[in-house]
């Protein structure tokens, strides 16, 4: 595996992590609203 391929792979992992983290934020907001309503 070349260093450039490794960089692209790690960037892919990092960006995927960022997207999942963004969804986690949405999930926290949704859970908060749902719990408060309940």
């Amino acid at each position, binding site marked *: *595996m*070349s*260093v*450039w391929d*490794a*960089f692209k*792979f*790690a*960037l*892919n*992992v*990092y960006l*995927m*992590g*960022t997207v*999942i*983290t*963004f969804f*986690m*934020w949405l*999930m*926290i*907001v949704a*859970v*908060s609203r*749902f*719990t*408060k309503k*309940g």
Partner: protein
Amino acid sequence: MDNFLNIFPGIMSFFQMPTEMAIARVFLIGLGFLVLYLGCKDILEPLIMVPMGVGICLVNAGILMMPDLADPAKQKLGTMFLDSMVNTPTEHINALQVYFLQPIYALTFSNGLIACMVFLGIGAITELDFFIGNPKLSLMLAIPAELGTFLTFPIAIAMGFTPKESAAIAVIGGADGPMVLFASLQLAKNLFVPISIISYIYLSIVYSGYPYLIKALVPKKLRGIPMKEMKIIKVSSGEKISFSIVTGTVLSLLFPVAAPLFVSFFLGVIIKESNVTRYVRFADEVILTGATLFLGFLLGCLLSADIVVNPQMFKLIILGFVALFLSGIGGLLGGYLACWLSKGKINPLIGIAGVSCVPSTAKVAHKCANEVNEEAFILPYAMGPNIAGVITTAILTAIYVTKVQFLQ
């Protein structure tokens, strides 16, 4: 002289091994004393370093000629502590009867249970209020603090490690001990001991090392921002339990390979929030304390001379430093961004708390702010990104463990 050496096989073993191994043993006994001393003096994290120092000293002193489990007719140099190289079921059964730490190693290390036990205990003492109260800020700061986890992977590849080994090394950048243990056990069992020891030693140094990075990169004026205008939002236990069960389920659904870690952490959180005091005390005082003691001691006992003379060890020392250094810089850059977006209301130091290492980095941020301005009490705000850092590290570790399997 021969009679004397026969009576003391530990001393004789120095003459039965190659010279470089004998020198490495002496070095390690000295290192054990040093680690123990620094742990006792609170310079390194005592909970891990005291048992680790004892383990390093004693395991490298107590070496003798023993029957080889693979072929009992032969003899090899070993200890009465444990043998991490057993492979076949027969060797396992024999080892359990010979080595006193083998049951703990076989039942808690080789399957990653020890990391899960530490994570359960951490969950049971974690305060989620600021994280759930300010999820946007906390998560926004945790992502840049993973810079080391991202950039260490290609650097490790450039230094000659395989993709699986590089991913296990990159996880050091997340600064989360149990996660490093889990990743190295899953991806690079051959490097599990050096990676874990290096990461735990570096994580212990974070408390005294990061203040220099902070002072070099953040001017005094910004370090003293008191964050008085920010409110700490009180979150109900119901909200925290709902968050834990939903997040744990979704993350386990996405990354089944890391589900044991997720379930351990969120089970700890739910135990705490459901207020079953006996379980909370059990998770904190028994599971976390016991797991930390055996983690430190067994890691110390696994640090033998052959690991130190391994040429990869030097590379790992460099990569561990690079990973945590980059994550620290990333965290501070995130802090600067938050400070700029809030028009100077947020202290940029809480960015470095995104490098999880609960609660050391949050304490470092607070200490550095408090040194400049006595009214700057930023610890509660720093705990948000600190907890978010644990979660983002778990996510990135899970992605690495899942995706790296498909690489050639």
